[in-house]
Each structure stands twice: as structure tokens, then as C-alpha cells.
């Protein structure tokens, strides 16, 4: 989707505000919102690509102006509803409890023991959740190839950012096959595809008058995003739908 989250090259956002120091979590609620990602992932709310797509569907104004972990809250609620993890009754209760905690912010949370959840945390942090997937697909591109990114605008989740669409660059790394976000993020299967790092010059991305000198941008693409340079980039072969 052509969403506001796709920020590369957007102008007018002002300075990057860099404080001298800040805590890892600025507020208690950020800790809980952070933990919801891994624990709701475990409970089957979403995969990581779906998690991102839920955030992308926030209202653009709210997306730009909300604190970061407000995005995470949004996508947990989004998939809680979409996947039936939160029933209509739960959602009504959620509104009631929100009102309650607004009035009584220091009221304690319910307490429950589950050593299995702590074991999950201890296991998942060092093990991770790799996105690499075996595939017997032969790569269509190799390091050194010149490729152009398809310029059309897909519906739904994609990692094909707008600022690289239609642009031509050079394949510099071939990474192997990984979960394809344009499938997994839209409720489909892993559908693994080859991933490549493509190098774009600043002038190719922004035009010679705007581009800063002596610079390049590296962007990772899945194979269906690209076509050999000189082919018609304005139309996909349908593989990315």
C-alpha cells in the first residue's frame, strides 16, 4: 500500500530530535506494549509481516503523531479483532477497563502465574525467529546485474518502498530465500523468494539537481520486485500480487 509509513525521501518533517540520553522505555505502558509483540506473536495474533501491516493501516495523522509504541498497541488490537482473539465482548470490556484505568491509573493488574511464558521469553530472545526459508527456486539475478524496480503500486503489505520504484541499480549481495512479505503480510503463506541488496546512486533516486554528492543507498528487494534493467518496469508479471 502507498501508506504514510513509507517515509523514505519525505520532505518537511524537520530536524531529527536527538536527546543527550533517554531510557530504553520512557513510560511503564511502553514496557507492556513492547512485550505484547512477542507474547501475542506466540499466541498466534500475527507474524512479523502482518504486525507491520497492522501498523501501516493506522490513520496517517495518528501514525505520524503517535508515540512509537502506540503503533504497536494499534496492531495488537487490529489483529486481536481480525483473528478473533479479542471477541466483541472482550472489546467492550477493553473500553470499560480503559475508562477505569483512566480514572484509576495506579490500580493493580490481575496476577497470574505461568512459568511457561518466562521460559518462552528466555528461549526466544537468544534463539530469534529466522525468516530464512529453504526453497529450490533458482535465482533469476546475480551479483553485478543491473535491475529496475517495478513501478506499480501494490495493494496491501509490501516492502517495495515508493522511493525505489522505477529506479535502476546494481545487485551487490544475493542473500538466499526468505519469507515473502507481500504474501505473509497479507495473510498468505511464507512463499519464499530470493532477496538481493541493490545499490542505487543518489542521483538515480533523487535526480542530479537534488542528490547529495558521492553517495549511494542500499535497499533489499525480493525477487518479484525487480526486473532486468531495460525491460519495461511499469508493469509487473503478476508474481507480486
Amino acid at each position, binding site marked *: 500500500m502507498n501508506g504514510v509509513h513509507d*517515509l*523514505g*525521501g519525505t520532505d518537511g518533517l524537520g530536524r531529527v*530530535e*536527538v536527546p543527550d540520553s*533517554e531510557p*530504553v*522505555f*520512557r513510560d*511503564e*505502558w511502553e*514496557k507492556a*506494549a513492547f512485550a*505484547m509483540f512477542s*507474547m501475542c506473536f506466540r*499466541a498466534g495474533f500475527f507474524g512479523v509481516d502482518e504486525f*507491520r501491516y497492522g*501498523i501501516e493501516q493506522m490513520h496517517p*495523522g*495518528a501514525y505520524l503523531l*503517535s508515540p*512509537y*509504541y502506540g503503533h504497536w*498497541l494499534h496492531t495488537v488490537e487490529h489483529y486481536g479483532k481480525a483473528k478473533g*482473539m479479542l471477541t466483541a465482548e472482550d472489546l467492550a470490556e*477493553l473500553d*470499560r477497563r480503559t475508562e*477505569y*484505568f*483512566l480514572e484509576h*491509573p495506579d490500580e493493580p493488574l*490481575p*496476577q497470574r*502465574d*505461568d512459568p511457561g511464558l*518466562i521460559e*518462552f*521469553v*528466555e528461549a*526466544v*530472545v*537468544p534463539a*530469534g525467529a*529466522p*525468516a*530464512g526459508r529453504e526453497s529450490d527456486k533458482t535465482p533469476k539475478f546475480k551479483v553485478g546485474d543491473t535491475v529496475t524496480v517495478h513501478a506499480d503500486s501494490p495493494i496491501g503489505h509490501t516492502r517495495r*518502498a515508493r*522511493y525505489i520504484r522505477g529506479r535502476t541499480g546494481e545487485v551487490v*549481495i544475493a*542473500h538466499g530465500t*526468505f519469507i515473502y512479505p507481500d504474501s505473509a503480510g497479507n495473510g498468505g503463506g511464507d512463499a519464499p523468494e530470493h*532477496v538481493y541488496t541493490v545499490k542505487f546512486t543518489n542521483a538515480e533516486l*533523487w535526480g542530479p539537481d537534488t542528490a*547529495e554528492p*558521492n*553517495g549511494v*543507498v*542500499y535497499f*533489499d*528487494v525480493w525477487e518479484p520486485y525487480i526486473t532486468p534493467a531495460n525491460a519495461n518496469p511499469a508493469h509487473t508479471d503478476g508474481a507480486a500480487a
Partner: protein
Amino acid sequence: MSEHVHTNEEIAARVKALESILIDKGIMTTAAIDRLVEIYENEVGPQLGAKVVARAWKDPAFRERLIEDASKACAEFNIGGLQGEDMVVVANTADVHNVIVCTLCSCYPWPVLGLPPNWYKEPAYRARIVKEPRKVLREDFGYDVPDSVEVRVWDSSSEMRYWVLPEPPAGIDGLSEEELASLVTRDSMIGVGAPAAPPSPGAS
């Protein structure tokens, strides 16, 4: 939640309400949240990446392994895991300066840098660092890259997690790996700053 922008108090109440429901459903516990938070507040952070960088500065063979396969090289330190399953280290040289970003969300190599600072996740950095990195580095980070040095921006659009091997500062001969690690800043591994200078001789 909709187009309405909520206050911090409203979001805090909403999160607490959702948390309470997820606890009732057996999906979360406060003890598991506390443990996860403790890991990223105290155990997993840029001090781990700093150890790796210090080793790479000291040991050319390790540096080569790190560039070849960063996740595998970090595993020699038992460093790895969530959001660093497939890490790629990009090395600065006298002619090249690297910087990382995720323009589409906030991808960041957690096992070596911890959770990202807020500015990394906010719109201004994500929008601008791909288009005017020299200007952002100079004006917002006070880090000037000469025009003779190529700026390479790595947009972490896939599950590969990029991070920067900074150049060692001058005057580090004779320093231990631990002393070297203390010079390696988070910002130098993102590419928005330099490592700290070593203490001058004679200073404690």
C-alpha cells in the same frame, strides 16, 4: 483507535486495559513482561556490539569473519537472537562512511545494539537519512563527512540487519579489548557518530 491522536494518559490506560485482558486470557503475565523488559534494559544493548567491534579492531582474522557472516561471528560471543538472525556488518574505511536506517518501520539489530533510540524510529530520521544523509549527520548529529568520503546508506527493508563497523580512533595502541570496547558508542555502530577518543596518556 482511529484518526484521533491520543494523549499519553489515554494510551497508558488503553495499554493497561488490554494488558489486563491479555493476562486474563493467559497470553501475558506481569512476570514475563518484567523479565523481557529486564533483558532489554540491562542485558542486551550496545555494550554487546561494542565487544564485537573491539575484537574486530584487535584481531584481523575475526574482523574478516565478521564481515563474511556477522551472525556467525557474533555467535562466538554468544551474541545473537531476536532481530539479529541475519546480521550484516558494513565496515567504514578512510573512503567510505556507512549509516543504517529502516525507512518503512524500525528494523534494527537488537542483539548487538539493543532496542533503537526513539529518533531512529521517528519520521524525520527515516524520511531524511536516505535523501540528505550528509546534511542530517552534520546538522542533527554534529558529524561532518567530507565530500571525498562516500556515504553509503543501508535501508533495512528485508530481515537482514545491517550495522556499522566504525574505524578505530587514533591512539589506541596498547589498549586492551575491554578498554577499546568502552570507546565504541551506539551511534558509531548506527553510523551517526564516531567512537570516543581514547583517554590521553597520563589521564587516569
